[in-house]
């Protein structure tokens, strides 16, 4: 019973998200270029406000700086996770030691 509720809730969430995506693709008002005012704002004002000619870096490190801080945190955590998993994982030695134990 509990698993059925979980499954139906998850499927409902997926259906809602997919429906919103399809709706926004076929919604002509959403897809029009002029209505995305934030893009023209970045192109017009980005180099004026920060005097940097690379607008991508301006967006990545200034307008969305906290997002990039989160990205760096994700990378840090991934590296630490791989390090933690692999620190005691010298495969050749481990296989050899298990063979010795078995023999």
């Amino acid at each position: 019973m509990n698993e059925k509720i979980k499954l139906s809730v998850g499927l409902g969430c997926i259906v809602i998200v997919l429906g919103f995506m399809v709706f926004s693709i076929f919604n002509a008002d959403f897809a029009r270029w002029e209505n995305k005012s934030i893009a023209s704002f970045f192109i017009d004002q980005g180099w004026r406000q920060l005097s940097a000619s690379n607008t991508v870096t301006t967006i990545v490190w200034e307008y969305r700086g906290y997002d990039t801080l989160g990205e760096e945190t994700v990378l840090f955590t991934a590296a630490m996770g791989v390090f933690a998993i692999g620190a005691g994982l010298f495969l050749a030695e481990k296989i050899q030691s298990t063979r010795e134990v078995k023999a």
Partner: protein
Amino acid sequence: MNVIVRTGAKVMFPLILLFGIYVIVHGHTTPGGTFSGGSIMAGGFVIYTLAHGVRKTELDLKEITINVLKSVSGFILIILILSELLLRAALVPTETLFTLWSGSSLMFFNIVGGVMVFTGLLMIWYTIAKTDVE
């Protein structure tokens, strides 16, 4: 590896590192920046490791150095983001477009973030490369 690969790696390694540093430092004027520059620098070390082995690479750049560098650069990044307002107010009047000295504090962000990406990828690569040591 044989002598052809070793010589090629010896020639290419400083050039790749230099190109990575260029991409990181010029991240606010030309295409590129933190992630691409850090990946290029880590790729140079990957080529060096493939040619000479993990043991010789560890003599040049120890793993504890990478860990300390990564932690310190993460700490500096948080301090930079917290002091962003003061930094930008002090830097913006002295800038000219299309030169190296532009884009308020973007260059410092790029350098610190590039070091973080470089050390992170290199830490993953060292761990993967070390598991195959016989």
